[in-house]
């Protein structure tokens, strides 16, 4: 059930607002120069994400949600505006600072998994645990997403859903503060998509990782604490779920 923020009164919102914001963004603008044309991907976004929150960023393709996620993840810089991760200024950070930030705090999950094809599931996760300071073992991370039996399989030997779960294991292995997922079920069928979402749900609950998922699939929004809707580079709606659905209950 989706409750509009404006209608729902202050109670749930206050509950969230009491917590420390993990991300604070003000007036985020991003303009890409494509040839001789300027494309405005973000047009002055103000946003806060809170610790442990499960947020879905909803929007059609071209709405700017991937750009927003990239900026939050320190992969890209805004043309104007401010973004803070706790006390880290992400706009004025150097390349080295951003690398440090990603290494210490962020886990990514991509639509096309982005696994290294020449490494096994275990090794893909080890790639991250090798450089992270407080990580779980690759085996534990893969156990969390239910892939204990597929440790030594190469990406080519895994199904799409399994590959995405390896990608989730890789993202969470270092116990990041935030998990940023770009269309994590975009390339999967419903059943597999749900399995992947269950893994994300479990990570959010068990590890308390702030999770932001971008998707154009409105059904997924039902499992979020909060839904932020983007259109044409602007936030056009923000809602809070009074009651969150379990991933296993979703159907699309």
């Amino acid at each position, binding site marked *: 059930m989706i409750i509009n923020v404006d209608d729902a009164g202050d109670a749930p919102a206050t509950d969230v607002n009491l917590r420390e914001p993990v991300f604070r963004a003000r007036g985020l603008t991003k303009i890409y120069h494509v040839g001789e044309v300027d494309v405005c991907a973000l047009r002055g976004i103000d946003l806060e994400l809170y610790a442990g929150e499960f947020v879905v960023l909803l929007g059609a393709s071209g709405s700017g949600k991937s750009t927003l996620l990239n900026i939050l993840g320190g*992969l890209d810089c805004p043309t104007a505006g401010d973004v803070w991760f706790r006390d880290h200024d992400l706009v004025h950070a150097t390349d080295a600072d951003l690398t440090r930030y990603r290494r*210490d705090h962020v886990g990514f999950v991509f639509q096309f998994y982005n696994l290294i094809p020449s490494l096994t599931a275990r*090794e893909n996760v*080890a790639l*991250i645990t090798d*450089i*992270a300071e407080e990580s779980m073992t690759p085996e534990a991370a893969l156990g969390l997403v239910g892939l204990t039996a597929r440790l030594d399989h190469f990406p080519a030997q895994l199904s799409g859903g399994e590959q995405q779960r390896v990608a989730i294991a890789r993202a969470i292995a270092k116990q990041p503060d935030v998990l940023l997922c770009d269309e994590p079920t975009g390339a999967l069928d419903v059943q597999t998509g749900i399995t992947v979402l269950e893994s994300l749900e479990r990570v959010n609950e068990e590890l308390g990782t702030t999770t932001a998922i971008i998707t154009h699939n409105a059904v997924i929004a039902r499992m979020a604490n909060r839904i932020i809707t983007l259109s044409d580079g602007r936030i056009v709606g923000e809602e809070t779920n009074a009651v969150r659905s379990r991933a296993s209950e979703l159907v699309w």
Partner: protein
Amino acid sequence: MRALQRKMFRDLWILRGPSLAIGLVMASGVATFVMSLSTLSTLYHARLSYYERYRFANVFVNVKRAPETLKSRLAEIPGVMHVGTRITQFVNLDLPDMREPATGRLLSLPDHGEPAVNRLYLRSGRWPELERPDEVLISDGFATAHRLQSGDRVRAILNGRRQDLRIVGIALSPEFIYQIREGDIIPDDRRFGIFWMRRRSLEAAFQMTGAFNNAVLLLSPGTDELQTIREVDRLTDPYGGTGAYGRGEQSSHKFISNEMEELRGMALFVPTIFILVAAWMMQVVFSRLIGTQREQIATLKAFGYSSTEVGLHYLQFVIFLAWLGTGLGIGVGTWLGRGVATMYSRFFHFPEFDFHLDSRVVLASIVISTLSAGIAVIIPVRKAMHLPPAEAMRPELPPAFGSTWLESLAVLRRAPVELRMIVRQMIRQPIRLTLTCLGLSLAVAVLILGSFMLDGLNYVMESEFNVAQRQDMTLTFVEPSQGRVLSEVAHLPGVISAEPFRSVPVRLRSEHHSRRLGLMGLRTNGRLFRIANVHRQSQSVPETGLILSSQLARVLSVRPGETVTIEVLEGRRPVQSMRVAGLVEDFQGEAAYASIDAVHRLMQEGDAVSGAFLAADTRQTAELYRELKRTPRLIGASLKGSALIALRETIISSILLMRTFNIGFACIIACGVVYNSARITLAERTRELATMRVIGFTRGEIGRILLGELAILTLLAIPLGLGIGHVMADFVIRAAYDTELFRIPLVIARSTDALAALVTLLAAVCTGLIVSHRLARLDLVAVLKTRE
């Protein structure tokens, strides 16, 4: 092992084909580098330690006859540590296993003990005993060539008397590492040997009691050699000294130095080509690898790998590859080096000559390969480092194709679509195209570099033996003889005609430049021995004035019409100015000619001759040889045929060996370049080619698109490579083979060009066919499903 390193090894395995090609080219470069420089270092150290241990002299002088009392005066020259005085004579040898006569050089040993300078290494046997005047030590090369051993006898004519010399031992001397008869270019161990005898025996045989005709001086380190030479000349002048000289003019030393010079030239040239090609191949492969791994790079960065770590990952990869090639190259280079050392030990006589892998060369090859690999991939690696992660998540933009100027050509507009695709692809990547073409052309060039020496030598041989030296035989007399000896020679059995020559040792001076050499007096209308230039045109000998080889003219810095001072170094030692009448661009390094009459006038002598050139009837050679073996005043009869055989046996066999190596190396380059280019093209265009298969093109048709570009490039590369090969050959000739001793002209036979083109073409075709087989395995569905 860290996961990133695992990735590197897995990527290496995936890229095993291109990596093998790169590794082999790198290995070829390192192998030639290690082989030539280690051989050079082996040669250098072997010579150095031989010289030191066996006290090789620094200054040498021949005199007519000097009293033994002069020895102490020579020893008093500042800086002189030891003086050895000796008696030396050339003699005519009669060997049962040879129809023709051979030449021996007798050299005295002190009556007691061993020489203090130019000590001998006794390979077997014992020293001659003073009481037994017929006992001799013989040089190792001569002993081997004739299978002589202690106890055997050799018949020689000593001062007109036949004498049987009994061999008691086989020896080597630092003076004759390269055992060559004065005036020859090629060592011939069958026809020239050194014989060491006790001094007393030689004194008796040549009436030299209490006298010597050759002295060798060992100097203490740091002594001014030129100053010493001047002093020695001053002291020996009254006794018919022919001018002292240093190691630089000692024939054995000079030849080894020459060989080392050539090795050095080759050590720099050929490996540079290989390393450049390997570097280029690395650049191409890594550009492609990094291009296809954009998303992997972005993922690594997204998870917190720094740009430096990403850069190091690829750098480590390429360096690992370079090290694999280097390791293989060092192994192969050592193996080749041992082969070359064995070959060298056939004409360089050292007590021991073992190939020694120089650790500095190994280190240098590692440094060079590492640096070149690093530099080769600097651009793609930088690209990987600077790839913004958010951008890298997106696939690369499709290559921008447009109509090109070439397509405005009417021919192309009517051309089939495959050809248009090939042309567009080629035009789109002009740099890669140029470099691929250049890489292939270097394979052609390597083949030329490996073979052109043989063409040059063949040309020299043909010119020298057919145009210049048309005699069948050259006789050299012990002493200059009266002109009437010529009629005696002409009456020898089978002799058709005989022409005299007069050769005198001189020093030519022009301002501060000077050179010691033999001035050759020839008949003006001579038919058997002519002065000929590199273009095989004979040049007549002028009545007056000198003809200098252009190399000598450069050294002396004189031009035709100018005069040089001639200081004769024998007889009455006249000094005279003579006009340079002309120059000859010939194969001799330094040579001076004049008419025989002009030489007689210079020497203020009658019609003395040093020897004669003979044209002989081959049907009567056996008789002629028999007669010559009995002629006491003869010290040598050099035969044109045997000189040719010697040349073939020594130099040409070694060049052929090198050519075999080079063909192998060039094939590696050609195959490597074609293989890598085809693989990259295949990787880049898999989707396109698969699409074409899906819409109905046959495998043959897409194979043509894949390989058409390479076929065009190979055809372009062949003429380019021939051009590069010719330019490089010219450079090598100038750098290594334009020496004081001889010059090899830049002659490249059509067959060499054809071989180079053919080998490259074959290598390209075979490799192309191998790669095109991969097209059969193209999984059309899978390829089309992948995201680009």
